[in-house]
C-alpha cells in the first residue's frame, strides 16, 4: 500500500522529514516533539526508513526529482551523522535526489559539534539552520533552552570550520522582558557573524506550550513587538540582507529554497510523525504521536493522519496568499477579483504594484493576515 495521491509534475519536489525528539521542551514550544531516548530514536529511525520505502513504492516515485530536503523537528541534530546518512541514502535509493539539492538540517547549538557538522556535510547536507533564538543568556534560560549565547557562537563556528558555507540562524523576538534595545543587541550580535540567512519569528503562544497553559509575565506589548520587527528589518537591510519573506532574510543567493517551495505552493513529501505534505491537489499530514507512527509502519502501513483535497478555488487562494508572503509577490492578474482591496492597500502603503506584479511592503507583511482574510 502506498500513497493514494501523486504529484502533478515530475518535480522538483521538496521533502520534509520530522525528527520528533528533544532533550527538554522549551517553555514556548507546542511542536510535535517528545523526550529523547536512544531507544526511541532507534525505533523511530527504522520506521522512517520504512516510510521512505513505502512512499517510494509509488509508481511515480522513480520519475520525480527531489530538489530540497529539510530535516525539521524536534531536534534533528540529535541524529548521529551515520543515521542521517542512512536516511539520505534511502531517499536517493527510492527517488532521484538532485545532486544540487538543498539539504538542510535544523540544529540546536548544544548538540552541534564540529565533528557532527562535518559528518552531516559528508553525508550530503549543505545547509544548517541553527536555533540560536537569542544572544541574551537570561532570556535563553527563561525560554528553557539548553544552550548559552556562547554555545551558539561555538556551534556556528563549528559549522563554519566543518566547511558548511550556508548557515541560517533562527531568532525570536517579542520575548518576556525583552525590550527593543535588548533585541537590537541580539540582532547586532548575530549579524556580525555574517550568516547567509536569518529567520526571525515573533513569539506566539499556541495551545500546548507551557507558557500558553501557565501564562507568562512580562510579554511586551504590540508596540514593542512592532518596533522590534522594524528594528530587525532596518538592521538587516543595512547589513545587506534581503527581506525576502515575512520572517526571513538572506544574503544574495541564499534564500531558503525549501521554504520557497511552501510559499510558491509547490509540492512536497511528508515524512515523519505529524509531517505535512502536498501532492497534486491533496494536502495531507501524518499521525502525530510517535508511538502511532511507528506502530503503523511496523504493521506495514503508511502512518497517514488527515488529508484534504483542495478545490480549485482553494488552490487559487492559497497560491495568492502564500505567494504574497514573498517579497517577489504575485502576478497582479491573480488579484483581479480584489481590485478595490489592492487599491486600498496600496493607498495605505501596504502593497506595491510594479508592472504586472504586486507585492506587500514591509509594512504590509506586518498586517498580511488582515489582507489574506479577504483573499480566501
Amino acid at each position, binding site marked *: 500500500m502506498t500513497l493514494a495521491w501523486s504529484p502533478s509534475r515530475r518535480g522538483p519536489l*521538496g521533502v*520534509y522529514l*520530522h525528527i520528533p525528539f528533544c532533550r527538554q521542551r522549551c517553555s514556548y514550544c507546542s*511542536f510535535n516533539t517528545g523526550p529523547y531516548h536512544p531507544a526511541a530514536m532507534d525505533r523511530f529511525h527504522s520506521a522512517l526508513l520504512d516510510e521512505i520505502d513505502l512512499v517510494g513504492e509509488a509508481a511515480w516515485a522513480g520519475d520525480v526529482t527531489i530538489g530540497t530536503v529539510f530535516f*525539521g523537528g524536534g531536534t534533528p541534530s540529535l541524529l548521529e551523522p551515520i543515521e542521517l546518512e542512512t536516511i539520505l541514502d534511502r531517499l536517493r535509493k527510492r527517488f532521484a535526489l538532485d545532486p544540487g539539492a538543498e539539504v538542510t538540517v535544523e540544529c540546536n547549538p548544544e548538540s552541534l559539534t564540529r565533528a557532527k557538522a562535518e559528518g552531516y556535510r559528508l553525508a550530503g547536507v549543505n545547509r544548517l539552520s541553527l536555533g540560536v533564538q537569542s544572544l541574551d543568556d537570561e532570556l535563553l534560560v527563561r525560554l528553557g533552552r539548553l544552550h548559552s549565547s556562547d554555545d551558539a557562537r561555538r556551534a556556528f563556528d563549528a559549522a563554519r570550520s566543518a566547511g558548511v558555507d550556508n548557515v541560517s540562524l533562527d531568532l525570536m523576538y517579542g520575548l518576556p522582558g525583552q525590550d527593543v534595545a535588548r533585541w537590537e543587541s541580539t540582532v547586532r550580535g548575530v549579524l556580525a557573524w555574517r550568516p547567509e540567512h536569518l529567520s526571525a*519569528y*515573533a513569539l*506566539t503562544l499556541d495551545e500546548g506550550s507551557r507558557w500558553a497553559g501557565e501564562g507568562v509575565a512580562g510579554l511586551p506589548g*504590540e*508596540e514593542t*513587538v*512592532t518596533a522590534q*520587527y522594524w528594528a530587525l528589518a532596518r538592521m538587516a537591510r543595512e547589513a545587506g540582507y534581503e527581506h525576502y519573506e*515575512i*520572517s526571513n532574510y538572506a544574503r544574495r543567493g541564499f534564500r531558503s529554497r525549501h521554504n520557497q*517551495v*511552501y510559499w510558491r*505552493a509547490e509540492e*512536497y513529501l*511528508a515524512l515523519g510523525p*505529524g*509531517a*505535512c*505534505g*502536498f501532492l497534486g491537489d491533496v*494536502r495531507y*499530514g501524518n499521525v502525530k504521536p510517535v508511538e502511532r507512527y511507528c506502530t503503523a509502519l511496523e504493521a506495514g502501513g503508511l502512518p497517514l493522519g*488527515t488529508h*484534504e483535497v483542495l478545490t480549485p478555488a*482553494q488552490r487559487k*487562494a*492559497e497560491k495568492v*496568499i*502564500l505567494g504574497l508572503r514573498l517579497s517577489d509577490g504575485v502576478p497582479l492578474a491573480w488579484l483581479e477579483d480584489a481590485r478595490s482591496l489592492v487599491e*486600498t492597500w496600496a493607498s*495605505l502603503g*501596504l502593497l506595491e504594484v510594479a508592472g504586472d506584479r504586486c507585492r506587500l511592503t514591509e509594512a504590509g*507583511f*506586518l*498586517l*498580511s*493576515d*488582515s489582507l*489574506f*482574510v*479577504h483573499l*480566501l
Partner: protein
Amino acid sequence: MALSRIRNFSIVAHIDHGKSTLADRLLALTGAMDPKKAVDQVLDSMDLERERGITIKQHTVRIPYLAEDSQEYTLNLIDTPGHVDFSYEVSRSLAACEGALLIVDAAQGVEAQTLANFYLALEANLTIIPVINKIDLPQADVEGTRRQIAEILGLNPDEALLISAKLGTGVPELLEAIVHRIPSPPGDPAAPLKALVFDSFYDPYQGVVVYVRIYEGRVRAGMPALLMSNGRVYEVQQVGVFTPEMKPVEELSAGQVGYLTAGIKRVADAKVGETITDNNRPTAEAFPGYRDAKPMVFAGLYPVEDTAYQSLRDAIDKLRLNDSALTFEPETSLALGYGFRCGFLGLLHMEIVQERLEREFGLALIVTSPSVRYRVITTAGETVEIENPSKLPTAGEIDHIEEPFVRSSVFAPTEFMNPIYRLAQDKRGEHRALEYLGKRVHITFDFPLSEIIVDFYDRLKSISKGYASFDYDFLEFRPSDMVKLDILLNGDAVDALSVILHRDKAYEKGKTLAEKLRAVIPRQMFEVAIQAAIGSRVIARETVKAIRKNVTAKCYGGDITRKRKLLEKQKEGKKRMKQLGKVEVPQEAFLSVLRS
C-alpha cells in the same frame, strides 16, 4: 331577546389587577366555559399574551346568565388590556357598553391606570361598579383600598364589591350586581340599523371580521350594509357572537354585541367608530366617529440580511391587517440599508411588533433607538413633522423645534417622593400637582415624551421598589431647545446613530455613545476617530488606534492547512461584521450600541 335582559360591560383596571382572571371566573360560574377546557386567563388567546401574562387586545365574550330572579340574562363582557400603550383598546371597548367593572387590587390600591381607565369610563357615561379584587391575599388592605376609591375616584365606597377572582369569592354577588346596577341597553330593534364598529380583525378566510355593537335595528346575513363614513356597501355574509369562539347566529339586534363579516378586504375599510347601517333603510345620523390610534414612538426596522427586505415588508403588511396603530414607511440608511420607519403606540407595542415579526415571520431584525415625532417650524414658516433624525432640515432652515409633551400621573408611597422628583427632574419633567392620599401620593408631571419612552418606567419601578405606577396621555407640542446629535466615524456620519435630543442632554449622550463605540469597534488597518457632533461642533471624541500587526509568522513544517483554517475562521467572523463607511464593526456590538 328582550333588551331588558341584556347587560353590556367592560372590565377595566390597572395592569395585573386581575381583569382576565375575573373574566375566567365569570365564564366558569355561568357555565359558559367547560371547566375541563379552562386555562387561566382563557381570553388571552394570543401566544404573546399567554407568554407575557398580559392582555394586549380587547376580548369580547357573550355569557348566558341565569340570575336569582330566575330570568336568563345575556352578558356581553369585554376584557381589556391594562397597559398604557393599549388604552386605545379600552376606550373603544367602552364605546360598546353601558357599564364598566373597575377592578382594584386590594394589595396595590388605586394606581395610575386605575385612574386613567376610570376617567375613560366616566367620559363614556358608563355606570361604574368598583370591585376590590384579590382579597384572599394576606397583604390585602380592603379598608385602605375602599378609602382610596372614595378619595381618589370619588365613588361610593359602600358600593364596592369584595372579590377574589382567583378563588371565586364574591363573584356570584358581582354577577347579581351587574344585572341590577348596569342599565339595560337602549334602542329600538324595529328602527333602521345603526351599528357601531368598535374593533375588527382580519381573517384570511372570511376577510375582515367586524366587532359591532347594535344600537338600533337588526342585522342578518344578506343585508346590504352601508359603511357611512366612506359610502361603501357590502353584503353581510355572517353575523354571530363570541362564546369566546365565533358562533354564527340568525341575527343581532339592538342592544347586542357581536360580529359580522361582509367580504370587507381591509381593516382600514371598517374603521373603529364607523357606523354601519342598512343600505335600503339607512339611519338618519351616523356616530360622530372616533379618533384613530396615533403612533407615539418611532423606530427604524431593518432586516439583518439585506435580502429579507421584501419579506419584512410583507410581514409588516400582514401585521397591519390587525394592528391599525402600527404605521410604516420605507426608509434607507447608509449604515443599515433598506428598512422601514415604523410608528408604535409605545415601547411595549414596539417590542410586541418586533417579537411577532421575528417569531411569526422568522425575520432577524435591527431596530434603531426609538424616538418621537417632532414638529419643526422652518424659517419659511412651514411645519414639518420629523420622525427620523436624519430627515431633520439643516440648522439654517429651522426656526424652532417643538416636541410632544405628555401629562402623566405617578402613584407611589410617600417615602419614594424624593427619588421620584429627582428622576422627574433628570427627565425634564415639570411638576403640576401633588395630592396626598394617606400613605401615598399622586403626583402629576408634564414630561417630554422622548424622555419617558426609553428607560423611565424601569427606573421608576426600581427606585420605588416596584410600588410606583405610571400613566400618561398626550398633551401638546411645546417649543424646546432640541438639537441633532451625529456620530461620525472618520468624518462620516453613521446615520442610524443620529438622534434628536435636548441640548442639555447632548453632551452626555454623545460621550456615552462615543465611549460605547470605542469599546466595540475592533482595531482596523487605520486609526478610527469617533466623534459626537452637533452640526460642525464636536462635543466628544474617542480614538481606536490602528492595528499594528496581524501576521502568521511561520507555517511550521509546511503546515499550510492550519494557517488556512485559521484564516477561514477569521473570515467567518468577518461575515458578522457591519461595514460603516470603511470601518468594520461586529454586527452584534453595533446592535447593542443602537439599542442603548
